[in-house]
């Protein structure tokens, strides 16, 4: 009936396909302070954000480039008062509009406006099913009650809902209840994602890494829930890299499916790519999106397989997982061309695994909460290795 990749698609760009998705980080402002936030430590200030007109032009260029789905993210995208205007504009270009939100501080009237503008799918984060745990992780009072009310309001308007559950050592033991909560909310999907250790999460790694026993239990929970809830709830599961045997196919390949635009207009193959030294990211303020996607050095740097070293170069899985994540190879192996240390074929793998086991069994240090000031304060370098 359908296939993951189009056949006979345009080959006018030397075999490079257009992106299917655009991740629009509309703002880095957010009422929550989650210590695993995927935003960079150096958060973009409000005064540096793209204007309404600039974002509309980005969406125009994205539609012409071949982007099909728009992921409106942040920070907290509803912090932008022009969100409904941006959604209406994106829909006028037939872009599919997905909102990725914390779900706090959004009135029913605002939600009505977003739906009227053409919003099509909502992903709401749930930090924990335990109210105190939720507040502690989010660094925000009464977060859970507000999130649940918002999620119910989304379903009451007939929109499909996905619950985003980021899991780690402080909430993993309540995974069953998170899945039950998603079901009770009428969600179609739950994304159970183990923390990925970049940016804030890397700085908080020793506080967040689950033990191997916790991880194994979570695998069993997901497996059983998938069996029992088949046809009722889809469970997407992202394993923690440090305990993996094979790396994740990061971004489905560098510059292959997704294009990311930061709040200040920098265009990146993924939201963490700034950790790779020497990569220069063009800005939508200076260059058209299509030229950046097809021609920029940053997007071509790790496309295909020619850049690979051994053991990736001759690996039968090189076009399945693309050697894993370039940012993680940089952060953990000190070389963005290296095999992602999540892969057991990486010479760094055993060291990373030992580190995960040691950190996860030690008492957790306090969180470094995500704030503008904390991200810009001088600190000890993250314990990369």
């Amino acid at each position, binding site marked *: 009936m359908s*296939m993951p990749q189009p056949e006979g698609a*345009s080959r006018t760009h030397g075999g490079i396909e257009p992106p299917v*998705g655009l991740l629009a980080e509309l703002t880095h402002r957010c009422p929550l302070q989650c210590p695993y936030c995927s935003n960079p430590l150096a958060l973009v200030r409000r005064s540096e954000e793209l204007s309404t007109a600039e974002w509309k032009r980005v969406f125009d260029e994205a539609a012409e480039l071949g982007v099909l789905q728009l992921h409106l993210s942040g920070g907290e995208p509803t912090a932008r008062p022009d969100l409904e205007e941006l959604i209406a504009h994106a829909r006028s270009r037939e872009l*599919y509009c997905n909102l990725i939100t914390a779900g706090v501080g959004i009135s029913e009237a605002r939600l009505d406006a977003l739906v009227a503008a053409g919003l099509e799918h909502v992903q709401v984060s749930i930090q924990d099913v335990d109210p105190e745990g939720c507040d502690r992780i989010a660094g925000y009072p009464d977060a859970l009650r507000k999130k649940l009310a918002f999620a119910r309001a989304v379903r009451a308007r007939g929109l499909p809902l996905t619950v985003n559950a980021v899991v780690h050592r402080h909430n993993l033991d309540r995974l069953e209840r998170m899945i039950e909560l998603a079901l009770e909310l009428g969600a179609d999907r739950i994304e159970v994602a183990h923390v990925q250790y970049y940016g804030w999460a890397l700085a908080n790694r020793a506080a967040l890494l689950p033990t191997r026993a916790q991880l194994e239990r979570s695998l069993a929970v997901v497996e059983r829930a998938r069996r029992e809830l088949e046809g009722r709830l889809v469970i997407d599961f992202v394993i923690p890299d440090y305990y993996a045997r094979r790396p994740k196919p990061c971004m489905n390949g560098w510059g292959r499916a997704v294009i990311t635009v930061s709040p200040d207009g920098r265009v990146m193959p993924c939201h963490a790519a700034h950790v790779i030294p020497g990569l220069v990211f063009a800005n939508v303020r200076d260059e058209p999106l299509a030229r950046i996607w097809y021609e920029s050095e940053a997007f071509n740097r790790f496309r295909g397989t020619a850049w690979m070293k051994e053991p990736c170069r001759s690996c039968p899985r090189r076009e399945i997982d693309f050697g894993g994540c370039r940012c993680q190879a940089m952060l953990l192996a000190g070389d963005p061309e290296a095999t992602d240390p999540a892969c057991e074929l990486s010479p760094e793998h055993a060291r990373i695994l030992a580190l995960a086991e040691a950190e996860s069994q030690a008492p957790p240090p306090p969180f470094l909460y995500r704030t503008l000031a904390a991200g810009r304060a001088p600190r000890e370098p993250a314990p990369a290795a």
Partner: protein
Amino acid sequence: MILDEACVVAPKPGVRLRFDPVRGRHVLLAPERVLFPCPTTVEILERIPPGGTTIARLVDGLAQEYDAARETIAEDVLALLGQLAKDRLIRVEREDRDVDAAA
């Protein structure tokens, strides 16, 4: 899910079929998914009205349009809609009961 011709099929909220001029083909957009449906799937999806219709009516329309044996068309349409329902890309109702959620 086993479908029969009495089932009512309807578009699912959050799932949208559109033509993509860049790739020169139809795309089916759903939460966190982009699918590239075959021409037969496109034809059937385009025939499902916003308020839904019975599979029998879809089959009647196709049999008339293509002057083909109704039985053959019914078999293909049921198989295809069954797959779309399994993939959560359409809604299916039967006997005033939404079996989509209970399946």
